[in-house]
């Protein structure tokens, strides 16, 4: 009885006693979740069109963030630094396509996955060799952790005097805009259509004259762009250091939830992970298990989820033929 009360009733009683706190946690969780989602979108874009499970996405985010921050410290204005970072990302896409992907065509998914881990190591070493291993900060005047409270008359009247981080709202806004932009790109532009064709069938798209190698460069550049967006938003929230790559690993469970092939699914999956891990941490982890449960909660959630729905919420069902 005591156990049931402590672990199953207590936390919910606490939530009911202070609902504004729950709302606060949920909003912060959505903010985190959108960041995971932004990284996961980069995974999805590459996986959809080349079938490569790109472990290096986290490192690409780190690459973008550290380059951007480094160029800013050199005294460049933010737009120039941003442009240069984007160019570097495209160069990275070219390099990866030329030196890794093109030479590994036709290898097993596992080999390609391992190769992207190698790419991840290389990128991490490269940017740190270039800019130094000290943590950097990214300050380009985006709304930061400055807190604001909804304490307007209507807020108080509804009992909603809560604290919302501006950076969370920024992440949400940016995420939504990015998904809409990507949707428009994939469905309205010529290249987007070609990319969807490549995602459907490599052979068939090659036979109608779509240049596969160029498409892969575009895909990697595109995921580099999302990595850049993720890095910019993330850089306002946390310090830029190699642990970022570990945090970006959380995009993997996000993908499991959202489905490997769905871009909006990545954001939804991110939200589910972000919100549930923060709720668990606040109401169970901190008081009952000694905290830091966010380190593993996402993965365990994905594990449980996989047992019931292996293709994710929005993924295509996995059909296998002998």
């Amino acid at each position: 009885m005591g156990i049931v009360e402590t672990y199953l009733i207590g936390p919910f009683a606490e939530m009911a006693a202070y609902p504004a706190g729950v709302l606060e946690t949920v909003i912060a969780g959505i903010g985190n979740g959108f960041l995971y989602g932004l990284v996961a979108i980069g995974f999805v874009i590459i996986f959809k069109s080349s079938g490569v499970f790109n472990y290096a996405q986290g490192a690409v985010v780190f690459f973008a963030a550290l380059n951007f921050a480094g160029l800013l410290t050199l005294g460049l204005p933010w737009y120039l630094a941003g442009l240069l970072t984007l160019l570097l990302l495209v160069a990275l896409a070219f390099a990866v396509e030329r030196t890794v992907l093109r030479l590994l065509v036709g290898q097993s998914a596992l080999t390609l996955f391992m190769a992207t881990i190698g790419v991840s190591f290389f990128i991490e070493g490269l940017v740190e060799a270039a800019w130094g291993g000290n943590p950097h900060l990214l300050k380009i005047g985006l709304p930061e952790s400055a807190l604001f409270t909804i304490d307007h008359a209507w807020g108080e009247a509804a009992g909603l005097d809560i604290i919302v981080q501006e950076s969370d709202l920024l992440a949400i806004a940016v995420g939504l805009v990015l998904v809409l932009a990507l949707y428009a790109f994939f469905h309205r532009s010529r290249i987007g259509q070609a990319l969807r064709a490549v995602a459907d069938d490599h052979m068939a798209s090659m036979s109608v004259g779509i240049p596969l190698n160029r498409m892969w460069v575009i895909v990697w550049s595109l995921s580099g762009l999302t990595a850049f967006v993720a890095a910019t938003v993330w850089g306002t929230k946390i310090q830029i250091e190699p642990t970022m790559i570990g945090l970006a690993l959380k995009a993997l469970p996000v993908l499991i939830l959202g489905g490997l092939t769905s871009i909006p699914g990545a954001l939804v999956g991110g939200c589910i992970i972000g919100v549930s891990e923060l709720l668990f941490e606040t109401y169970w982890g901190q008081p009952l298990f000694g905290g830091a449960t966010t380190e593993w909660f996402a993965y365990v959630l994905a594990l449980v989820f996989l047992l019931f729905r292996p293709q994710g919420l929005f993924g295509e069902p996995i059909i296998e033929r002998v």
Partner: protein
Amino acid sequence: MLYRETGVYQTSYGKDQAVFRLPLDRYAIAGWLIVAFAIVPAFASSYVLTDLLTPFLIMSIAALGLNVLTGYCGQLSLGSGAFMALGGFMTYKLVTAFPTAGALLGVVAGIDVALPDPALGTFRPFDLWFLAILIMAGAITAAVGLVFGLPSLKIKGLYLAVTTLAAQFFLIWLFIKVPWFTNYSPAGIAPAPPRTLLGFQVTGAASPVVCRYLFVLSLTVLVALAVKNVSRCHTGRSWMAIRDMDIAAEMIGVHPTAAKLSAFAFSSFLIGIAGALWAFVKINSVQTDAYGILVSFQVLFMVIIGGLGSVLGSFLGAAFVTFSPILLNIGLNALNPYLLAFGLGRIEVAMIKHIEFMVFGALIIFFLIVEPNGLARLWQIAKQKLRTWPFPY
């Protein structure tokens, strides 16, 4: 001509199925064993033994363990670090829970043989308790590995990577948060208590380097032989059937549940023992820092670079991953005097670390491109060349 298979005739089925069928192979392996057991400990420096060979051998055991799972059974795992940690912590708990059992067994048996060098201790043929503890810790790791292997019954491939990542992060978190695992040691770092095996002190800070090396070497040889033989028997064949095509394997009567779970259990058992050795023989302490996600990746690299489904490959991969950072470090440090002489400054320690990362990543990509089937495949090719030498056509 150099590697001859002709003229070798087997007169029984048993001989035909032997692990080393050719006399040449038998001589080669006997030579290697003599070098490893007799010549190396006699001549190698303490640095070579502790910092090069011992970690190489321990990581070989881990690589053999993961090769059972990934190479033979085709199930991807990124949780090796956590299972190594589990093995280490369980050994620590068992060792401290039964502190005197080992000595008791030795004394009861009552056979002591004094050794020529008193520094090595006294030879006690019944002092096998530490080995028993290792096996028990391995068994616990196997049980936990089995639990985290359950999702493999429904999913496979890269999805499995995520569920094993769950094991990695959850177990490490558990060992940090629950002080019981380290017997409430400060900062979660438990010193490895000194223990003996056959009368030799094999663990603890005061243990002689040679004892540790020979202990790890013997275990490695045993594990390699076990993996080789298990992979050739019914169980190993069912693993390979599942790896090559699970649905077809099921059709011909391979039980997928039994095959996958036995692979998870056996693999975790070996990885757990490797983790225990790492804590007790290599770093002299049990702590979570030694078993991070990076270790999981390293073990996976060993298996992939060495060669999936190959015992030799596990050793080659372990050698590559263990030695290449050390060689890089030495090489870059050796460059410093020349750079200074030309007025180019020196490479700082942090920079060496970054360059190590870059080169290591590049080497992985390079080997995957040059030989996707691993270093073991290179040996196959070399054997073929030696077979036909000097007339390749």
